[in-house]
Protein backbone atom coordinates (compact mmCIF):
# COMPACT_ATOMS: atom_id res chain seq x y z
CA UNK A 1 0.00 0.00 0.00
CA UNK A 2 2.71 2.39 0.99
CA UNK A 3 4.79 1.43 -2.02
CA UNK A 4 1.85 2.02 -4.29
CA UNK A 5 1.53 5.54 -2.89
CA UNK A 6 5.19 6.19 -3.54
CA UNK A 7 4.95 4.97 -7.11
CA UNK A 8 1.81 6.96 -7.82
CA UNK A 9 3.34 10.09 -6.36
CA UNK A 10 6.36 9.70 -8.59
CA UNK A 11 4.20 8.97 -11.60
CA UNK A 12 2.45 12.33 -11.34
CA UNK A 13 5.74 14.15 -10.90
CA UNK A 14 7.41 12.34 -13.81
CA UNK A 15 6.57 14.67 -16.72
CA UNK A 16 7.85 17.74 -14.87
CA UNK A 17 10.93 15.96 -13.58
CA UNK A 18 11.78 14.40 -16.93
CA UNK A 19 11.67 17.73 -18.77
CA UNK A 20 13.49 19.53 -15.99
CA UNK A 21 16.26 16.91 -15.91
CA UNK A 22 16.61 16.98 -19.68
CA UNK A 23 16.62 20.76 -20.09
CA UNK A 24 18.23 22.08 -16.91
CA UNK A 25 19.87 19.51 -14.61
CA UNK A 26 21.78 17.31 -17.04
CA UNK A 27 23.11 20.25 -19.11
CA UNK A 28 24.09 22.03 -15.89
CA UNK A 29 26.07 18.97 -14.72
CA UNK A 30 27.60 18.57 -18.18
CA UNK A 31 28.54 22.22 -18.06
CA UNK A 32 30.33 21.69 -14.74
CA UNK A 33 32.11 18.69 -16.29
CA UNK A 34 33.14 20.65 -19.41
CA UNK A 35 34.57 23.35 -17.20
CA UNK A 36 37.15 20.81 -16.04
CA UNK A 37 38.18 19.79 -19.56
CA UNK A 38 39.99 21.47 -22.41
CA UNK A 39 37.11 21.17 -24.88
CA UNK A 40 36.98 23.89 -27.51
CA UNK A 41 33.45 23.14 -28.68
CA UNK A 42 34.24 21.52 -32.00
CA UNK A 43 37.09 19.06 -31.43
CA UNK A 44 36.13 15.46 -30.77
CA UNK A 45 38.90 14.95 -28.24
CA UNK A 46 38.10 15.90 -24.68
CA UNK A 47 40.59 15.44 -21.91
CA UNK A 48 40.09 16.08 -18.24
CA UNK A 49 42.31 18.85 -16.91
CA UNK A 50 40.95 19.41 -13.40
CA UNK A 51 40.67 22.92 -12.04
CA UNK A 52 43.14 24.56 -14.41
CA UNK A 53 40.39 26.56 -16.15
CA UNK A 54 39.33 28.02 -12.82
CA UNK A 55 42.88 28.97 -11.93
CA UNK A 56 43.34 30.55 -15.35
CA UNK A 57 40.05 32.40 -15.26
CA UNK A 58 40.85 34.14 -12.00
CA UNK A 59 43.98 35.58 -13.53
CA UNK A 60 42.13 36.65 -16.69
CA UNK A 61 41.84 40.42 -16.64
CA UNK A 62 38.70 40.51 -18.77
CA UNK A 63 36.92 38.10 -16.46
CA UNK A 64 37.89 40.10 -13.39
CA UNK A 65 36.62 43.27 -15.06
CA UNK A 66 33.35 41.51 -15.89
CA UNK A 67 32.99 40.42 -12.25
CA UNK A 68 33.65 43.93 -11.02
CA UNK A 69 31.16 45.37 -13.54
CA UNK A 70 28.51 42.83 -12.60
CA UNK A 71 28.88 43.68 -8.92
CA UNK A 72 28.72 47.44 -9.51
CA UNK A 73 25.80 47.08 -11.89
CA UNK A 74 23.87 44.77 -9.57
CA UNK A 75 24.29 46.97 -6.52
CA UNK A 76 23.57 50.20 -8.37
CA UNK A 77 20.47 49.17 -10.22
CA UNK A 78 19.04 47.24 -7.28
CA UNK A 79 19.46 50.30 -5.07
CA UNK A 80 18.01 52.76 -7.60
CA UNK A 81 15.12 50.57 -8.65
CA UNK A 82 14.03 49.89 -5.10
CA UNK A 83 14.34 53.43 -3.78
CA UNK A 84 12.59 54.88 -6.83
CA UNK A 85 10.06 52.04 -6.80
CA UNK A 86 9.13 52.70 -3.17
CA UNK A 87 8.91 56.47 -3.72
CA UNK A 88 6.71 56.08 -6.78
CA UNK A 89 4.53 53.49 -5.10
CA UNK A 90 3.98 55.73 -2.08
CA UNK A 91 3.07 58.65 -4.37
CA UNK A 92 0.72 56.55 -6.46
CA UNK A 93 -0.96 54.86 -3.52
CA UNK A 94 -2.73 58.07 -2.45
CA UNK A 95 -6.42 57.67 -3.06
CA UNK A 96 -6.89 61.39 -3.64
CA UNK A 97 -4.34 61.57 -6.44
CA UNK A 98 -6.02 62.19 -9.76
CA UNK A 99 -5.06 60.20 -12.88
CA UNK A 100 -3.14 57.71 -10.74
CA UNK A 101 -4.18 54.73 -12.85
CA UNK A 102 -2.77 56.48 -15.91
CA UNK A 103 0.57 57.04 -14.15
CA UNK A 104 0.68 53.45 -12.94
CA UNK A 105 0.09 52.01 -16.41
CA UNK A 106 2.63 54.26 -18.10
CA UNK A 107 5.32 53.54 -15.54
CA UNK A 108 4.68 49.82 -15.83
CA UNK A 109 4.74 49.62 -19.64
CA UNK A 110 8.55 49.57 -20.13
CA UNK A 111 8.87 46.44 -17.99
CA UNK A 112 6.47 44.64 -20.33
CA UNK A 113 8.61 45.29 -23.39
CA UNK A 114 11.46 42.94 -24.18
CA UNK A 115 14.95 43.99 -23.13
CA UNK A 116 15.95 43.47 -26.74
CA UNK A 117 13.47 46.09 -27.96
CA UNK A 118 14.30 48.66 -25.29
CA UNK A 119 17.99 47.97 -25.88
CA UNK A 120 17.73 48.80 -29.58
CA UNK A 121 15.47 51.74 -28.76
CA UNK A 122 18.11 53.35 -26.55
CA UNK A 123 20.85 52.40 -28.95
CA UNK A 124 19.02 54.27 -31.68
CA UNK A 125 18.26 57.28 -29.52
CA UNK A 126 21.83 57.59 -28.29
CA UNK A 127 23.78 56.40 -31.30
CA UNK A 128 26.32 58.85 -32.75
CA UNK A 129 25.89 60.41 -36.24
CA UNK A 130 22.39 59.13 -36.92
CA UNK A 131 20.87 58.82 -33.44
CA UNK A 132 17.71 60.61 -32.40
CA UNK A 133 19.11 62.61 -29.50
CA UNK A 134 22.11 63.64 -31.56
CA UNK A 135 19.85 64.85 -34.36
CA UNK A 136 17.74 66.88 -31.95
CA UNK A 137 20.80 68.43 -30.37
CA UNK A 138 22.20 69.10 -33.85
CA UNK A 139 19.02 70.75 -35.02
CA UNK A 140 19.01 72.98 -31.97
CA UNK A 141 22.70 73.81 -32.55
CA UNK A 142 23.66 72.65 -29.06
CA UNK A 143 26.32 70.15 -29.94
CA UNK A 144 27.70 68.28 -32.87
CA UNK A 145 26.07 64.85 -33.07
CA UNK A 146 29.36 63.21 -33.97
CA UNK A 147 30.91 64.44 -30.73
CA UNK A 148 28.00 63.06 -28.81
CA UNK A 149 29.02 59.44 -28.50
CA UNK A 150 28.32 57.82 -25.15
CA UNK A 151 29.27 54.36 -26.40
CA UNK A 152 32.88 55.28 -27.10
CA UNK A 153 33.72 56.26 -23.53
CA UNK A 154 33.94 53.41 -20.98
CA UNK A 155 32.31 55.17 -18.05
CA UNK A 156 29.59 56.85 -20.09
CA UNK A 157 28.78 53.55 -21.79
CA UNK A 158 28.53 51.72 -18.49
CA UNK A 159 26.32 54.38 -16.91
CA UNK A 160 24.11 54.32 -20.02
CA UNK A 161 23.65 50.56 -19.72
CA UNK A 162 22.70 50.87 -16.05
CA UNK A 163 20.36 53.80 -16.68
CA UNK A 164 18.46 51.96 -19.41
CA UNK A 165 18.05 48.95 -17.13
CA UNK A 166 16.68 51.13 -14.33
CA UNK A 167 14.40 52.86 -16.84
CA UNK A 168 13.03 49.51 -17.88
CA UNK A 169 12.54 47.82 -14.52
CA UNK A 170 11.54 50.54 -12.10
CA UNK A 171 7.86 50.10 -12.93
CA UNK A 172 8.04 46.42 -12.08
CA UNK A 173 9.32 47.15 -8.59
CA UNK A 174 6.71 49.87 -8.23
CA UNK A 175 3.93 47.35 -8.90
CA UNK A 176 5.33 44.97 -6.25
CA UNK A 177 5.49 47.82 -3.73
CA UNK A 178 2.01 49.05 -4.59
CA UNK A 179 0.57 45.66 -3.74
CA UNK A 180 2.64 45.66 -0.54
CA UNK A 181 1.29 49.08 0.43
CA UNK A 182 -2.27 48.01 -0.22
CA UNK A 183 -1.82 45.16 2.26
CA UNK A 184 -1.06 47.58 5.12
CA UNK A 185 -4.27 48.00 7.18
CA UNK A 186 -5.62 51.55 7.45
CA UNK A 187 -6.16 51.14 11.20
CA UNK A 188 -2.41 51.28 11.75
CA UNK A 189 -2.26 54.78 10.27
CA UNK A 190 -5.38 55.86 12.16
CA UNK A 191 -4.00 54.75 15.51
CA UNK A 192 -0.75 56.55 14.65
CA UNK A 193 -2.65 59.74 13.96
CA UNK A 194 -4.43 59.41 17.29
CA UNK A 195 -1.05 58.99 18.98
CA UNK A 196 0.03 62.21 17.30
CA UNK A 197 2.57 60.90 14.78
CA UNK A 198 3.53 63.19 11.91
CA UNK A 199 3.77 61.95 8.27
CA UNK A 200 7.55 61.37 8.49
CA UNK A 201 7.17 59.25 11.59
CA UNK A 202 4.39 57.30 9.91
CA UNK A 203 6.66 56.65 6.93
CA UNK A 204 9.59 55.37 9.00
CA UNK A 205 7.70 53.59 11.75
CA UNK A 206 4.73 52.14 9.90
CA UNK A 207 5.07 52.15 6.12
CA UNK A 208 8.67 51.04 5.67
CA UNK A 209 8.70 48.29 8.33
CA UNK A 210 5.41 46.93 7.03
CA UNK A 211 6.82 47.00 3.50
CA UNK A 212 9.81 44.80 4.34
CA UNK A 213 8.34 41.56 2.87
CA UNK A 214 7.95 43.37 -0.47
CA UNK A 215 11.50 44.69 -0.19
CA UNK A 216 12.79 41.13 0.30
CA UNK A 217 11.02 39.97 -2.84
CA UNK A 218 11.85 42.96 -5.02
CA UNK A 219 15.52 42.93 -4.03
CA UNK A 220 15.67 39.17 -4.60
CA UNK A 221 14.25 39.49 -8.12
CA UNK A 222 16.45 42.49 -8.95
CA UNK A 223 19.58 40.73 -7.72
CA UNK A 224 18.97 37.56 -9.73
CA UNK A 225 17.89 39.52 -12.79
CA UNK A 226 20.89 41.83 -12.81
CA UNK A 227 23.44 39.13 -12.00
CA UNK A 228 22.22 37.31 -15.11
CA UNK A 229 21.82 40.48 -17.18
CA UNK A 230 22.71 39.95 -20.80
CA UNK A 231 20.37 41.51 -23.37
CA UNK A 232 20.92 45.19 -22.59
CA UNK A 233 24.70 44.91 -22.60
CA UNK A 234 24.71 42.68 -25.66
CA UNK A 235 22.59 45.11 -27.66
CA UNK A 236 23.91 48.43 -26.40
CA UNK A 237 27.66 47.88 -26.23
CA UNK A 238 28.40 44.21 -26.87
CA UNK A 239 30.66 44.45 -23.84
CA UNK A 240 32.84 47.18 -25.32
CA UNK A 241 34.55 49.58 -25.65
CA UNK A 242 37.55 47.37 -24.81
CA UNK A 243 35.54 45.10 -22.47
CA UNK A 244 34.73 48.03 -20.19
CA UNK A 245 31.03 47.14 -19.97
CA UNK A 246 31.44 43.37 -20.00
CA UNK A 247 29.28 41.50 -17.49
CA UNK A 248 29.71 37.85 -16.50
CA UNK A 249 26.83 36.84 -18.78
CA UNK A 250 28.25 38.59 -21.84
CA UNK A 251 31.70 37.24 -20.97
CA UNK A 252 30.28 33.72 -21.05
CA UNK A 253 28.63 34.42 -24.39
CA UNK A 254 31.73 35.99 -25.87
CA UNK A 255 34.06 33.19 -24.81
CA UNK A 256 31.87 30.12 -25.16
CA UNK A 257 29.59 30.97 -28.08
CA UNK A 258 31.48 33.34 -30.31
CA UNK A 259 34.99 32.78 -28.98
CA UNK A 260 35.03 29.00 -29.22
CA UNK A 261 36.51 28.51 -25.75
CA UNK A 262 33.79 26.30 -24.39
CA UNK A 263 35.66 24.94 -21.38
CA UNK A 264 36.54 28.43 -20.32
CA UNK A 265 33.03 29.78 -20.77
CA UNK A 266 31.48 26.91 -18.84
CA UNK A 267 33.88 27.57 -15.96
CA UNK A 268 32.60 31.15 -15.88
CA UNK A 269 29.00 29.99 -15.99
CA UNK A 270 29.54 27.55 -13.13
CA UNK A 271 30.97 30.38 -11.08
CA UNK A 272 27.98 32.54 -12.00
CA UNK A 273 25.50 29.83 -10.97
CA UNK A 274 27.03 29.37 -7.52
CA UNK A 275 27.37 33.14 -7.00
CA UNK A 276 23.68 33.68 -7.78
CA UNK A 277 22.76 30.81 -5.48
CA UNK A 278 24.82 32.10 -2.56
CA UNK A 279 23.88 35.77 -3.00
CA UNK A 280 20.17 34.92 -3.21
CA UNK A 281 20.19 32.73 -0.11
CA UNK A 282 22.19 35.19 1.98
CA UNK A 283 19.98 38.06 0.85
CA UNK A 284 16.71 36.30 1.66
CA UNK A 285 18.01 35.14 5.08
CA UNK A 286 19.21 38.64 5.93
CA UNK A 287 16.10 40.50 4.76
CA UNK A 288 13.71 37.99 6.32
CA UNK A 289 15.31 38.70 9.69
CA UNK A 290 14.41 42.39 9.23
CA UNK A 291 10.74 41.73 8.59
CA UNK A 292 8.26 42.51 11.34
CA UNK A 293 5.28 40.46 12.37
CA UNK A 294 2.06 42.21 13.16
Amino acid at each position, binding site marked *: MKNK*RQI*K*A*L*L*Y*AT*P*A*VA*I*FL*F*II*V*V*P*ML*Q*SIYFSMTDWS*GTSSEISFVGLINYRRIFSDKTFLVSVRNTVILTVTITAFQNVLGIL*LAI*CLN*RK*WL*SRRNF*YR*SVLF*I*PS*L*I*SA*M*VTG*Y*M*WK*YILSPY*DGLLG*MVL*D*AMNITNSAAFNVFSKPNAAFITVMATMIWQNV*GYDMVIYL*SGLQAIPDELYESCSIDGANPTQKLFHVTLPMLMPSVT*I*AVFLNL*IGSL*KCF*EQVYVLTGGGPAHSTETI*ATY*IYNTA*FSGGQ*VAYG*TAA*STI*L*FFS*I*FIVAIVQVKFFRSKEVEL
Partner: protein
Amino acid sequence: MRVMRRKGGGMVHIPLILVTLIMLVPLLSIVVVSVSSWTSLTKSFFSFTYDLHLENYASAWEKGNMSLYFSNTIVVLMIALILINLCASLCAFSIKLYKTKTVNLIYYMLLAGIFVPIQAVMLPLLQTMKVAGLLNTRFGVALVYVGMNLPLALMLFCGFYQSIPGELLEASMLDGCNSIRTYFHVIFPLSGTIISTVIILSGLQIWRDFFVPLILAGTPNTKTIAISLMQFVGFYNYDWTGICAAMVIQTLPILLLFLLLQKYFVNGIVAGAVKG
Protein backbone atom coordinates in the same frame (compact mmCIF):
# COMPACT_ATOMS: atom_id res chain seq x y z
CA MET B 1 -2.98 70.34 2.99
CA ARG B 2 -6.73 69.80 2.81
CA VAL B 3 -7.09 72.08 -0.19
CA MET B 4 -4.27 70.34 -2.02
CA ARG B 5 -5.88 66.97 -1.49
CA ARG B 6 -9.20 68.06 -2.84
CA LYS B 7 -7.52 69.34 -5.97
CA GLY B 8 -6.20 65.86 -6.57
CA GLY B 9 -2.52 66.01 -5.82
CA GLY B 10 -1.17 69.48 -6.62
CA MET B 11 2.61 69.52 -6.39
CA VAL B 12 2.94 65.71 -6.42
CA HIS B 13 2.04 65.82 -10.10
CA ILE B 14 5.22 67.66 -11.11
CA PRO B 15 7.71 64.82 -10.45
CA LEU B 16 5.15 62.29 -11.63
CA ILE B 17 4.64 64.06 -14.95
CA LEU B 18 8.42 64.28 -15.31
CA VAL B 19 8.82 60.53 -14.76
CA THR B 20 5.93 59.82 -17.12
CA LEU B 21 7.63 61.88 -19.82
CA ILE B 22 10.92 60.03 -19.30
CA MET B 23 9.02 56.78 -19.80
CA LEU B 24 6.81 57.84 -22.70
CA VAL B 25 8.94 60.14 -24.88
CA PRO B 26 11.46 57.45 -25.95
CA LEU B 27 8.64 55.01 -26.72
CA LEU B 28 6.62 57.57 -28.69
CA SER B 29 9.65 58.80 -30.59
CA ILE B 30 10.20 55.23 -31.80
CA VAL B 31 6.63 55.17 -33.10
CA VAL B 32 7.21 58.48 -34.87
CA VAL B 33 10.42 57.29 -36.50
CA SER B 34 8.74 54.05 -37.55
CA VAL B 35 6.34 55.97 -39.78
CA SER B 36 8.69 58.58 -41.17
CA SER B 37 11.03 58.46 -44.11
CA TRP B 38 14.69 58.08 -43.24
CA THR B 39 16.03 60.52 -45.83
CA SER B 40 13.84 63.41 -44.73
CA LEU B 41 14.54 62.55 -41.10
CA THR B 42 18.31 62.78 -41.49
CA LYS B 43 18.29 65.81 -43.76
CA SER B 44 16.92 68.17 -41.20
CA PHE B 45 15.31 66.91 -38.09
CA PHE B 46 12.71 69.57 -37.34
CA SER B 47 11.58 70.11 -40.90
CA PHE B 48 10.46 66.55 -41.51
CA THR B 49 7.21 66.44 -43.32
CA TYR B 50 4.21 65.06 -41.60
CA ASP B 51 3.30 62.35 -44.02
CA LEU B 52 2.79 58.81 -42.86
CA HIS B 53 5.04 56.19 -44.38
CA LEU B 54 3.04 53.14 -43.43
CA GLU B 55 4.89 51.17 -46.08
CA ASN B 56 7.72 50.99 -43.52
CA TYR B 57 5.62 48.43 -41.71
CA ALA B 58 5.01 46.39 -44.83
CA SER B 59 8.70 46.30 -45.68
CA ALA B 60 9.66 45.58 -42.06
CA TRP B 61 7.19 42.70 -42.06
CA GLU B 62 8.78 41.40 -45.25
CA LYS B 63 12.40 41.97 -44.25
CA GLY B 64 11.95 40.71 -40.70
CA ASN B 65 10.43 37.50 -42.03
CA MET B 66 7.58 38.21 -39.64
CA SER B 67 4.90 35.92 -41.08
CA LEU B 68 7.09 32.91 -40.41
CA TYR B 69 8.41 34.13 -37.06
CA PHE B 70 4.95 35.02 -35.81
CA SER B 71 3.59 31.58 -36.63
CA ASN B 72 6.69 29.97 -35.06
CA THR B 73 6.16 31.98 -31.90
CA ILE B 74 2.51 31.03 -31.70
CA VAL B 75 3.24 27.32 -32.16
CA VAL B 76 6.02 27.42 -29.57
CA LEU B 77 3.81 29.37 -27.17
CA MET B 78 0.95 26.90 -27.49
CA ILE B 79 3.09 23.79 -26.95
CA ALA B 80 5.07 25.36 -24.12
CA LEU B 81 2.13 26.85 -22.23
CA ILE B 82 0.11 23.63 -22.35
CA LEU B 83 3.08 21.55 -21.18
CA ILE B 84 4.08 23.99 -18.44
CA ASN B 85 0.60 24.07 -16.96
CA LEU B 86 0.05 20.33 -17.26
CA CYS B 87 3.43 19.25 -15.87
CA ALA B 88 3.54 21.79 -13.06
CA SER B 89 -0.02 21.20 -11.89
CA LEU B 90 0.39 17.40 -11.96
CA CYS B 91 3.59 17.66 -9.97
CA ALA B 92 2.03 20.08 -7.47
CA PHE B 93 -0.98 17.75 -7.19
CA SER B 94 1.31 14.87 -6.33
CA ILE B 95 3.03 16.98 -3.66
CA LYS B 96 -0.32 17.96 -2.20
CA LEU B 97 -1.97 14.52 -2.28
CA TYR B 98 0.84 12.14 -1.34
CA LYS B 99 3.27 14.29 0.65
CA THR B 100 6.04 11.70 0.27
CA LYS B 101 9.67 12.59 0.95
CA THR B 102 10.71 11.96 -2.64
CA VAL B 103 8.26 14.42 -4.15
CA ASN B 104 9.20 17.04 -1.58
CA LEU B 105 12.81 16.59 -2.60
CA ILE B 106 11.75 16.99 -6.23
CA TYR B 107 10.05 20.25 -5.31
CA TYR B 108 13.24 21.71 -3.87
CA MET B 109 15.29 20.48 -6.79
CA LEU B 110 13.01 22.26 -9.23
CA LEU B 111 13.05 25.44 -7.16
CA ALA B 112 16.84 25.53 -7.37
CA GLY B 113 16.30 25.85 -11.12
CA ILE B 114 15.46 29.53 -10.59
CA PHE B 115 19.13 30.22 -9.96
CA VAL B 116 20.44 28.53 -13.11
CA PRO B 117 21.60 31.14 -15.61
CA ILE B 118 20.44 30.04 -19.04
CA GLN B 119 23.89 30.75 -20.51
CA ALA B 120 25.25 27.96 -18.31
CA VAL B 121 23.08 25.22 -19.77
CA MET B 122 22.87 26.36 -23.37
CA LEU B 123 25.99 24.77 -24.79
CA PRO B 124 25.59 21.24 -23.42
CA LEU B 125 21.89 21.54 -24.21
CA LEU B 126 22.76 22.22 -27.83
CA GLN B 127 24.65 18.90 -27.94
CA THR B 128 21.88 16.96 -26.18
CA MET B 129 19.23 18.37 -28.48
CA LYS B 130 21.30 17.37 -31.49
CA VAL B 131 21.58 13.79 -30.20
CA ALA B 132 17.87 13.66 -29.39
CA GLY B 133 17.00 14.95 -32.85
CA LEU B 134 15.21 17.97 -31.41
CA LEU B 135 17.57 20.59 -32.77
CA ASN B 136 15.88 22.99 -35.19
CA THR B 137 12.40 21.83 -34.30
CA ARG B 138 9.73 24.03 -32.78
CA PHE B 139 8.99 21.31 -30.27
CA GLY B 140 12.61 21.40 -29.10
CA VAL B 141 12.52 25.17 -28.61
CA ALA B 142 9.22 24.82 -26.73
CA LEU B 143 10.73 22.15 -24.46
CA VAL B 144 13.55 24.49 -23.48
CA TYR B 145 11.01 27.09 -22.45
CA VAL B 146 9.08 24.48 -20.48
CA GLY B 147 12.23 23.64 -18.54
CA MET B 148 12.99 27.30 -17.91
CA ASN B 149 9.49 28.15 -16.71
CA LEU B 150 8.68 25.05 -14.68
CA PRO B 151 10.18 26.21 -11.36
CA LEU B 152 8.06 29.35 -11.07
CA ALA B 153 4.92 27.58 -12.33
CA LEU B 154 5.41 24.74 -9.86
CA MET B 155 5.83 27.22 -7.05
CA LEU B 156 2.61 29.02 -7.99
CA PHE B 157 0.62 25.78 -8.29
CA CYS B 158 2.01 24.41 -5.01
CA GLY B 159 1.21 27.63 -3.18
CA PHE B 160 -2.34 27.49 -4.46
CA TYR B 161 -2.92 23.79 -3.83
CA GLN B 162 -1.75 24.16 -0.24
CA SER B 163 -4.73 26.47 0.28
CA ILE B 164 -7.22 23.85 -0.95
CA PRO B 165 -8.63 22.01 2.08
CA GLY B 166 -7.49 18.38 2.27
CA GLU B 167 -11.06 17.31 3.09
CA LEU B 168 -12.08 18.16 -0.46
CA LEU B 169 -9.63 15.60 -1.82
CA GLU B 170 -10.58 13.01 0.80
CA ALA B 171 -14.27 13.49 0.06
CA SER B 172 -13.75 12.94 -3.64
CA MET B 173 -11.61 9.85 -2.98
CA LEU B 174 -14.30 8.49 -0.63
CA ASP B 175 -16.89 9.03 -3.35
CA GLY B 176 -14.90 6.61 -5.46
CA CYS B 177 -12.83 8.92 -7.61
CA ASN B 178 -9.36 7.63 -8.28
CA SER B 179 -6.50 10.10 -8.18
CA ILE B 180 -6.63 10.92 -11.90
CA ARG B 181 -10.32 11.71 -11.73
CA THR B 182 -9.79 13.75 -8.58
CA TYR B 183 -7.21 15.76 -10.48
CA PHE B 184 -9.37 16.36 -13.53
CA HIS B 185 -12.73 16.85 -11.81
CA VAL B 186 -11.80 18.52 -8.54
CA ILE B 187 -8.36 20.13 -8.68
CA PHE B 188 -8.01 21.21 -12.30
CA PRO B 189 -11.31 23.14 -12.50
CA LEU B 190 -10.27 25.10 -9.41
CA SER B 191 -6.92 26.16 -10.87
CA GLY B 192 -8.19 28.83 -13.29
CA THR B 193 -6.52 31.80 -11.66
CA ILE B 194 -3.15 30.09 -11.38
CA ILE B 195 -3.32 28.87 -14.97
CA SER B 196 -3.97 32.40 -16.18
CA THR B 197 -1.09 33.70 -14.05
CA VAL B 198 1.27 31.08 -15.46
CA ILE B 199 0.10 31.83 -19.00
CA ILE B 200 0.79 35.54 -18.55
CA LEU B 201 4.20 35.14 -16.87
CA SER B 202 5.55 32.35 -19.05
CA GLY B 203 3.92 33.76 -22.18
CA LEU B 204 5.64 37.11 -21.62
CA GLN B 205 8.97 35.39 -21.00
CA ILE B 206 8.71 33.32 -24.18
CA TRP B 207 7.49 36.20 -26.33
CA ARG B 208 10.34 38.44 -25.23
CA ASP B 209 13.16 35.95 -24.90
CA PHE B 210 15.88 36.28 -27.43
CA PHE B 211 18.69 34.17 -26.04
CA VAL B 212 17.14 30.77 -26.81
CA PRO B 213 16.42 31.56 -30.47
CA LEU B 214 19.83 33.25 -30.74
CA ILE B 215 21.64 30.05 -29.76
CA LEU B 216 19.27 27.19 -30.49
CA ALA B 217 17.43 28.25 -33.61
CA GLY B 218 19.85 27.69 -36.43
CA THR B 219 17.23 27.73 -39.17
CA PRO B 220 14.50 30.31 -39.85
CA ASN B 221 11.88 27.62 -39.23
CA THR B 222 12.38 27.71 -35.47
CA LYS B 223 13.12 31.39 -34.86
CA THR B 224 10.69 33.31 -32.70
CA ILE B 225 9.57 36.89 -33.04
CA ALA B 226 12.09 38.46 -30.65
CA ILE B 227 14.99 37.56 -32.92
CA SER B 228 13.46 39.25 -35.97
CA LEU B 229 15.18 42.49 -34.98
CA MET B 230 18.51 40.91 -35.86
CA GLN B 231 17.46 40.94 -39.52
CA PHE B 232 17.84 44.71 -39.55
CA VAL B 233 21.27 44.84 -38.01
CA GLY B 234 23.93 45.04 -40.64
CA PHE B 235 27.63 44.78 -39.97
CA TYR B 236 28.25 48.48 -40.44
CA ASN B 237 24.89 50.10 -40.59
CA TYR B 238 21.53 49.81 -38.96
CA ASP B 239 18.25 50.18 -40.82
CA TRP B 240 16.71 52.34 -38.11
CA THR B 241 13.26 53.02 -39.57
CA GLY B 242 13.01 49.28 -40.23
CA ILE B 243 14.09 48.40 -36.69
CA CYS B 244 11.63 50.89 -35.25
CA ALA B 245 8.76 49.48 -37.29
CA ALA B 246 9.75 45.93 -36.31
CA MET B 247 9.92 46.93 -32.65
CA VAL B 248 6.44 48.42 -32.83
CA ILE B 249 5.11 45.30 -34.57
CA GLN B 250 6.45 42.91 -31.96
CA THR B 251 5.54 45.07 -28.97
CA LEU B 252 2.02 45.99 -30.03
CA PRO B 253 0.44 42.60 -29.24
CA ILE B 254 1.79 42.70 -25.66
CA LEU B 255 0.65 46.27 -25.12
CA LEU B 256 -2.83 45.59 -26.49
CA LEU B 257 -3.21 42.52 -24.28
CA PHE B 258 -1.94 44.52 -21.31
CA LEU B 259 -4.41 47.35 -21.86
CA LEU B 260 -7.27 44.86 -22.30
CA LEU B 261 -6.38 42.61 -19.38
CA GLN B 262 -4.59 45.09 -17.15
CA LYS B 263 -5.97 43.65 -13.93
CA TYR B 264 -4.89 40.10 -14.77
CA PHE B 265 -1.42 41.24 -15.78
CA VAL B 266 -0.80 43.17 -12.59
CA ASN B 267 -2.29 40.44 -10.39
CA GLY B 268 -0.30 37.79 -12.23
CA ILE B 269 2.97 39.64 -11.92
CA VAL B 270 2.39 40.40 -8.26
CA ALA B 271 1.45 36.76 -7.59
CA GLY B 272 4.54 35.59 -9.43
CA ALA B 273 6.71 37.96 -7.42
CA VAL B 274 5.15 37.29 -4.04
CA LYS B 275 5.36 33.55 -4.36
CA GLY B 276 8.90 33.91 -5.65
